[in-house]
């Protein structure tokens, strides 16, 4: 019986490890920095991701060729942006989106190199969470029931050698 719970403990530990790895990856690869945060002076040197909305009436340049300037806003903070990169499919005014690039504090401009969609990781987590938890719970309940049944059969008064030998293997 101890082996049964040890096996299931390992399954649980593996599941938690996968959740932790995914969360770490999300934090390093997909998280965004608030616009107010990049103006505090502690902005990292490597490319960062910021989320906000393209301000109406500010988009200019050759967007189809991947060259554009616009103002990016989030709450009360607005910053100027220079975009040089692949032609963005989703770049338009009043669009909430994610920009990848570097903050140039001296020139007071965010130099964007790429765009991304706003993450909807909550839906992904919900879908995986519901599926994995339900299946694991059903599997655990069935396996536990089989183990208990073997035990009951073994302990019942009528002796059945084949059942007994299988129960030992459990």
């Amino acid at each position: 019986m101890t082996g049964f719970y040890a096996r299931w403990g390992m399954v649980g530990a593996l599941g938690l490890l996968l959740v932790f790895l995914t969360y770490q990856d999300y934090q390093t690869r997909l998280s965004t920095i608030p616009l107010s945060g990049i103006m505090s002076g502690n902005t990292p040197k490597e490319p960062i991701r910021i989320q906000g909305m393209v301000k109406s009436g500010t988009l200019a340049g050759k967007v189809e060729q991947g060259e554009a300037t616009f103002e990016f806003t989030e709450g009360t903070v607005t910053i100027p942006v220079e975009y040089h990169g692949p032609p963005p499919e989703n770049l338009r005014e009043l669009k909430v989106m994610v920009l990848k690039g570097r903050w140039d504090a001296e020139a007071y401009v965010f130099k964007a190199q790429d765009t991304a969609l706003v993450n909807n990781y909550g839906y992904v987590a919900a879908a995986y969470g519901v599926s994995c938890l339900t299946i694991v719970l059903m599997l655990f309940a069935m396996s536990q029931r089989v183990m208990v049944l073997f035990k009951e059969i073994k302990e019942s008064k009528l002796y059945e050698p084949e059942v007994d030998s299988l129960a030992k293997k459990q």
Partner: protein
Amino acid sequence: MNRFIRYIQRYKGWFGGAAAICLLVGLYTGLLVSPPDYYQGEVVRIMYVHVPLAHTSLLAYSILFGGSIWFLWKRDPLVDNMCQAASSITALFTGLALVTGSIWAKPTWNTWWTWDPRLVSFAVLLLILAGYMMLRRLVDDPDKQGIYAAVLAIVGGVDLPIIKFSVEWWRTLHQPMSISTRGISISDDLLLPLTFMSLGCWLLFAYMLMVRTQMLYLIELLQAKKGRLLSQTHFSQSAQ
């Protein structure tokens, strides 16, 4: 003990282990390695769990369908046990496919549910399975229970081709088949985790079917043993 049950006891661990490996590789590649979709973004990762669940529920119902025909032909109680086991696992996979599909629909179609032929035919499958399980509980006679349930499962099999071809027969919001005899219209980056997750779900279904069939057999065996014990006690008391 039945020879088939002994085989299950001996080999089910292999299926469980293989399923765990495939699912772990599929989850790792699906969540951490594969790139986000250019249009859907990160939400595309729901595909790696929704599509394998939907495929597996169709495969599982096909097994229930085949098992029901076999039971009506041979009247093997163990096949009846297997069908009963398959029904609840199929209901689980079908329900999860509907729930994950609904979660995926919200950010992509901007609705949790729509009266689309694929969605409706899949929901009908869940209702058929619910009816199958209710029938099993309502009929007390085990022989009649097996026969009625098998007939219902065979009649319900009509829904399988409707689900499969609904995206071709009717105008639908649901995307058409990505993998068919006409070819594969899906990128290799997305195909790898999808393949591992599908294989993992099929193996997981096989493992769950084995465990549940074994469970149902052991319940019957225990009941039979208790029955024998009771009759033996009654016989010895009567003799005194």
